[in-house]
């Protein structure tokens, strides 16, 4: 891992919950699918991180899961957003675009002396 990606680790860590909510919000998924979708991004993560996070989101009543049979092995947990989770994700999305606008705006006009 390069020093840059290490330096930005706190940013990734802070945003992981947001991204997981977005993935769970887009479809009903199980953990290997979430890992797969994150794997090719800057947010690649592991089960050791994801399970505690999902469990926290569930306790905060933002996601819920249902058991589904699988062709191989025991039933799997499929996660989706609750109503509260959808509302929370909507406000996060809004907030995120505000932050983006702020970042853009603050950097835009080069200061004139």
């Amino acid at each position, binding site marked *: 891992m390069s020093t840059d990606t290490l330096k930005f680790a706190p940013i990734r860590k802070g945003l992981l919950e947001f991204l997981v909510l977005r993935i769970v919000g887009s479809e009903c998924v199980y953990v290997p699918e979430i890992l797969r979708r994150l794997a090719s991004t800057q947010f690649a993560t*592991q089960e050791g*991180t994801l399970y505690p996070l999902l469990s*926290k989101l*569930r306790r905060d009543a933002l996601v819920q899961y249902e058991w589904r049979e699988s062709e191989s092995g025991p039933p799997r947990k499929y996660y989706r957003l609750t109503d509260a989770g959808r509302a929370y994700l909507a406000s996060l999305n809004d907030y995120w675009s505000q932050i983006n606008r702020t970042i853009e705006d603050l950097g835009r006009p080069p200061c004139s002396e």
Partner: protein
Amino acid sequence: MQRVITVSLNRNAYHLELDAHARLEAYLARAAARLEAYPDRMEVIADLEQAVADQCARRLQPGQTVITLAELAPALEEIGEVEVPGAPGPLPSDDPGAAYRATPSPENALQQISEGAWVSGVCNGLARSSGLDVTLLRVIAVVLLVFTGGAMMLLYAVLMLLIPYAPLASNAAPLPWLPAKSREIVTAIRSKLATLTG
């Protein structure tokens, strides 16, 4: 020939070789320690156990029924250490006995543990089975050594001869000189005694 331990991962039976079992036990103990204050820790641990089972099952060759370190090590690597969201996560201590003590099991029977031992592993083993800190026990032992002189040394030697050794993890680093030598000497004396009495 390797002995095999059968464990239940999320309520399904799996067979593991001894060294794989030790590695998995240590991993789950670390996970449990990090999740200590976590309300849903049992559920997360069940999820992790299932993940371990799935990852190992994927790596087994057709017809292979026993999980070895060759399957377990990359599986644990892929799953990663447990990170608690929002917390930097207390790091597990470097105390080699901690992983053993964190999982209370019938294996807490008194044994000498050579890994991380100073002399022969008596204090290390006493720490595991009593749940006391190994450093505390060593301090007591050294204080007794200073005040009782030969008596403490004699007691240590007797315990060294009597308490069985815990099996070495096959993937462990070579032992430092003194524990290795103690183990060798005690084993030699025991086999001598066995031939004499047997």
